[in-house]
């Protein structure tokens, strides 16, 4: 080249608010305000619950069963509701994860015929959008049928009670299902097509590819979805109130060790809080706060687990 290229002069990227238009400055201030307000609200909830929790929570509450009668004011802790929350969360997740993962695998890896794939997707969207109280009422109608008597207990005259841990967990799984499905599908879609082809190009079948390559890669995605689903199940009240029989104590049906508890009724921390709040009959506000604090800790711990899992699984193919 004949002419020497001009040396570009370096200018430092100086940006000061004084050069902004007024509208932009107002918008920025609003964004800041929104973010700070959200932090304040979250902090207020946690601090208030922490304060109330420290005030009201005694170790004995975690180890004692609720009192026999309706009033919880005199005696009783919330061991049974705590066990109920754990049982329901574990069972609901255990049902939702295989179903959600299988659905996502079918949709992303096969997805044919496409009208069926679209129908499945809209179906899951409908389930995700259904309020849990609607799911609860539907579950009650469905599981009160004579054919489902084995899930709860049958009274004289063939009336099925339709309320038990098994039934509540089944409907709870529909709350977690869309979350597990969504994060599994996202994880699958994030795997580049050439990774699958690399497996096919070594003479592997579709199923071998799914089992050996895809499933190990989407494990963090599945874990994230499961943890999100667990948080939702642990926090749901409507299904518990309608489908778990509203007995504060675990009330077994029959005398087979584990099954009779699962066929029986009980409560969870959410229904315990409801029961002891001013809206319920327990009449022990302090215990409601203590239980709410424990529930909050459980859900925050689950959310934290989601963060950890998601961060650990983030280094994948470019």
């Amino acid at each position: 080249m004949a002419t020497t290229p001009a040396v570009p002069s370096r200018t430092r990227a100086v940006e000061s608010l004084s050069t902004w238009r007024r509208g932009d400055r107002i918008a920025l201030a609003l964004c800041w305000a929104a973010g700070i307000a959200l932090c304040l609200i979250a902090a207020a909830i946690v601090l208030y619950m922490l304060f109330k929790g420290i005030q009201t929570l005694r170790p004995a509450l975690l180890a004692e069963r609720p009192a026999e009668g309706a009033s919880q004011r005199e005696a009783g802790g919330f061991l049974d509701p705590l066990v109920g929350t754990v049982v329901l969360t574990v069972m609901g997740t255990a049902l939702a994860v295989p179903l959600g993962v299988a659905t996502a695998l079918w949709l992303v890896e096969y997805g044919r015929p496409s009208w069926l794939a679209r129908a499945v997707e809209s179906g899951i969207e409908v389930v995700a959008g259904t309020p849990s109280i609607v799911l609860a009422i539907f579950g009650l109608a469905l599981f009160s049928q004579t054919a489902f008597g084995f899930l709860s207990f049958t009274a004289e005259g063939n009336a099925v009670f339709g309320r038990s841990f098994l039934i509540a967990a089944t409907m709870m799984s529909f709350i977690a299902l869309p979350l597990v499905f969504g994060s599994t599908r996202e994880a699958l879609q994030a795997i580049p097509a050439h990774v699958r082809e690399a497996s096919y190009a070594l003479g592997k079948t579709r199923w071998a590819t799914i089992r050996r390559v895809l499933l190990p890669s989407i494990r963090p995605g599945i874990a994230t979805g499961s943890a999100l689903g667990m948080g939702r199940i642990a926090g749901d009240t409507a299904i518990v109130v309608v489908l778990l029989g509203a007995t504060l104590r675990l009330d077994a049906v029959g005398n087979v060790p584990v099954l009779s508890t699962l066929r029986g009724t009980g409560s969870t921390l959410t229904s315990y809080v409801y029961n002891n709040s001013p809206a319920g009959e327990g009449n022990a506000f302090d215990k409601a706060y203590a239980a709410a604090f424990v529930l909050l800790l459980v859900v925050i711990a689950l959310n934290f687990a989601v963060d950890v899992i998601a961060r650990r699984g983030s280094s994948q193919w470019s």
Partner: protein
Amino acid sequence: MELTPPPPVRRIVLDEPPTVVAAPAGPATAATPQAPAVRRRTAGTETVVRERMRVERLSVAYDGKAAVREVSLTIRAGEVLALIGPSGCGKTTLLRTLNRLTELTPTAQRSGSLTLDDDDVDALDVTELRRRVTMVFQQPNPFPMSIFDNVAYALREQARRRPRRSELAGAVEHALRRAGLWDEVGDDLDRPALRLSGGQQQRLCIARALAAQPEVLLLDEPCSALDPRSTETIERLIVELRETLAVVIVTHNLQQAYRVADSVAFMFLGELVENGPAEQVFGAPRAGRTRDYLAGTFG
């Protein structure tokens, strides 16, 4: 930094019939006026060249749109065949058709015949075909498992008894040695494969493809995501591998094609324009379109 002048416009003659040249018996001695000033890599010993795959009047169309038109060529063991041509000319489609990967695209249609050792590829079980004709992709794509499991992946039969690790160790080491990776990773095969560098990952992918003991190795621009040093390692590897295998490589890099290939096929708009020994195609291309393409790139 000084700006380089824009590359000259390539003019490619569209209305010329394809010029496919049969490989002459002896080594070509044509002068190489336009050849780039790089030394050709050669393997140490002369290898026996034997026909492996035969492609005859092969056409592939996506959704009725032709991507490869009536291509006929031969793939020989002991030889590296480079497919060159501008983007979208059907090189990769042709390559993917060789082990029936195009069938994964629902809209793809194929016509013409394709044989491996005189057997029609459609008569073979597709998993067997793909074990005999393995492929390495443009992006390094090790599976999210250990180095050992990556290489052993093709060896572990599906649905049958999983062979024990000790039974596979020999084959895994052999494949890693052939891919030139053993010295770097041999001491710790349990490391996750995704933690290797890009060049190592790509050689791991080659080892993975070699572990299946293939007869033909397909490489789809294997170096385009790598730095020059890794590229050099892999090019040397390709030249060594052709002693025992048939190697087909798609590349955009003409210098690379010149360095590694024994024969070169130039494709344009889905047609095979010229096919012959590398010296001849690069040195004295017979087709006007090849000449234009090479001149445009080197000019």
